[in-house]
């Protein structure tokens, strides 16, 4: 499985197309495209990964790399709201616990949403309804999936608020979102998403809007809750520090595709894609001695309407000319195994990348 370099259409780690996923969550060749006046926006363009229960996958990437759309696609929310005008085109397979979500009956997916899979959004103020109390919103989420009376549901809401560390939960349950501080709103949203004990929790930039001290509290909470409930967690962020804290596996996205995927240790200590090197180099680090200079990635992220041909990263890649025959600009690299459960999509040979990383990049970090 490791040394496989496939040339077929399926991107990602080679999987057979037979519907027999052993993983809890398996995404196969997911594509989410949005038609617009300017052209087709290929937000996600062939993404595959698996996730087991009790494990955490970190999806890292810059804005516009397709990480949020991936999560919306899994939740079946890609057609909602701001994308509503013209229908998003989605293809591929998403297997959750043995059910394929894209071809399933929408009513069935709606039953799963909230109960089997739940989401924590980046901005809790816009994700919570300003007209209803926190309690009412949690009660609603609970009663949709459980046939209980309001009193029981409210008791459950208080219990959840208590669990996520909101002081005086029996009083705060009747507060409105605006009466909460940013950190408490995020806690309330976590309480709401966990009220039905979902088996899959997607956290889309859960701490980006928060201060570091509050972020530390929330990350701690997510980690504890995962241990307690044993859910699978996908954490989406641009902050490599946050993924390093939480994730078992890391998936690096660039231009709607996965450029590198592997266990967290591998991706941090032996990254095998120039974009991952770039991310690591452009980040000032508190745990190291002062760097003289950061090593930025030149240029800016690509437009998803005009993804560069060949490797999407080639205009910004300092090593674009290393592979022969202008390969980087003409042929799209596929994910190939570079180690145990570790894949990267790059035309450079493994030896070349290993040498560049150990000799040129790692010493400067």
């Amino acid at each position: 499985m490791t040394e496989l370099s496939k040339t077929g259409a399926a991107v990602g780690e080679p999987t057979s197309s037979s519907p027999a996923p052993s993983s809890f969550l398996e995404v196969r060749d997911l594509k989410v495209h949005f038609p617009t006046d300017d052209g087709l926006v290929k937000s996600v363009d062939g993404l595959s990964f698996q996730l087991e229960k009790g494990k955490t996958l970190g999806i890292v990437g810059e804005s516009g790399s397709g990480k949020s759309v991936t999560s919306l696609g899994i939740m079946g929310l890609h057609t909602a709201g701001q994308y509503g005008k013209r229908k998003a085109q989605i293809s591929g397979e998403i297997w959750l616990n043995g059910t394929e979500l894209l071809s399933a009956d929408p009513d069935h997916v709606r039953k799963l949403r909230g109960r089997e899979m739940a989401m924590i959004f980046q901005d809790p103020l816009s994700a919570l309804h300003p007209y209803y109390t926190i309690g009412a919103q949690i009660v609603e989420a609970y009663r949709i999936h459980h046939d209980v009376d309001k009193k029981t549901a409210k008791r459950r809401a208080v219990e959840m608020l208590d669990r996520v560390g909101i002081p005086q939960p029996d009083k705060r349950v009747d507060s409105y979102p605006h009466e909460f501080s940013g950190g408490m709103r995020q806690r309330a949203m976590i309480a709401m998403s966990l009220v039905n004990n979902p088996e899959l929790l997607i956290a889309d930039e859960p701490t980006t809007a928060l201060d570091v001290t509050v972020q530390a509290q929330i990350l701690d909470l997510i980690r504890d809750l995962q241990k307690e409930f044993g859910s699978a967690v996908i954490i989406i962020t641009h902050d490599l520090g946050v993924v390093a804290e939480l994730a078992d596996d890391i998936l690096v996205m660039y231009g709607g595709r996965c450029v590198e995927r592997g266990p967290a240790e591998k991706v941090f200590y032996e990254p095998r894609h120039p974009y991952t090197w770039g991310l690591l180099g452009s980040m000032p680090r508190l745990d190291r001695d002062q760097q003289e200079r950061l090593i930025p990635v030149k240029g800016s992220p690509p437009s998803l309407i005009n993804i560069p041909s060949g490797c999407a990263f080639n205009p910004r890649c300092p090593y674009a000319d290393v592979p022969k025959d202008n390969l980087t600009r003409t042929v799209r690299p596929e994910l190939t195994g570079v180690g145990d459960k570790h894949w990267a999509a790059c035309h450079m040979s493994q030896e070349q990348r290993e040498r560049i990383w150990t000799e040129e990049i790692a010493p400067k970090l």
Partner: protein
Amino acid sequence: MSENAEDKAGSIPAQSDGAEAGPAGETSGTATLTKDAAPGEILLKVTGLQKHFPIKKGLFQRQVGAVRAVDGIDFEVRSGETLGVVGESGCGKSTMGRLITRLLEPTAGAIEFEGKDITHLGVSGMRPMRRDVQMIFQDPYSSLNPRHTIGTIVGAPFRLQGVEPEGGVKKEVQRLLSVVGLNPEHYNRYPHEFSGGQRQRIGIARALALKPKLVVADEPVSALDVSIQAQVVNLMDDLQEELGLTYVIIAHDLSVVRHVSDRIAVMYLGKIVELADRESLYKAPMHPYTKALMSAVPIPDPARKNAKSERILLKGDVPSPISPPSGCRFHTRCWKATEICRTTEPALLELRPGQRVACHHPENFEDQAPQDTVLLTAAKEAAELVADEVLAESAETSAAVAAELAEEAAAEEPASEEPASEETASEEVAASEETPSEEAASAETAEASAPESGSQESTDK
């Protein structure tokens, strides 16, 4: 003022002539071309600066309270250095930036720029000053007028100041664009045609147009992607070296601040709690808040995933700046707080050369109030969140430092830290001139000092 500056400009040779030798190097002629203050001299001095935003209510809009965004801060910025200001949202760091650029009128205190008091200068009085003090804003989307071309935007400072650069505005603007790494041919494009990082470069070009002495950057990179952040940080670094700029960089990201700053001020609820050289601050932070803040930054190293014990979790949220806690403002969340922290505000004292701290029980240093040992109940609760290792370590280092100091004191004349602290503390109380209300607040917060700081904030609103 401009004449004054001109004189100085004449007398002291331009420090960065070589770098400025571009077409407009000598053109704008008047005040702002050269750096007057030699590196290391005090360029900006702030004393007792306050900004209270009134809260008005009712039919007659009577003032019922005030948000004490900045509540008595002192610091100075030396020429050629970068002062980083960190703190959580709501600590007053942005307000501070707007005060020193005089975009806001201070409630009290004084701001001196190159020895000249600019605290209450009017619009026209400030105009010559504006050449020397420029600002880079956080949001590159809202800080550029969408209906103006880049040429107009970057050229606006020349128009407003009536400066005619040699070779014309257009040529100078194009030079500036290339300095910040943009294509000079994009002169006629509009902001929407640029990406976030490019827009931030446009904002930087505009700030540099008049060759300012001091650039105040409010979260210059926080709206940008990681890879772009590094580009902009490096650009600001290079420009500082080339043009001999002085920066005040306000940011919430501690790793970015460490990377760019020479000295760092940590703010909490409108006060500076620690002001120190970069190395001392990061190696041996003295204020418990600084320590907690730094331990909260997630480290991008999966090997440390389970090293949870190093982290100091703070309880609850930042209290409201409408009625900040009495005494030390951090006492409601501090794991070392004792009675004195609740009653007496600690003064910002230089405990170690180059490291000023406002704390009664500093970390990595001798206890300033050793007689006071009984922890507040809130502190006991807070300490539960702090790993024992951290507590033990901090006690050890404090003891070691104390022993060291005792030896030194035995050798020399006993340096009397105590009376000095009392003096300054009483001064500060007098200066804040709101002792009664503070007492009232203290009673209030004493009750709510425990975990509800967050709820207190919300109910106050």
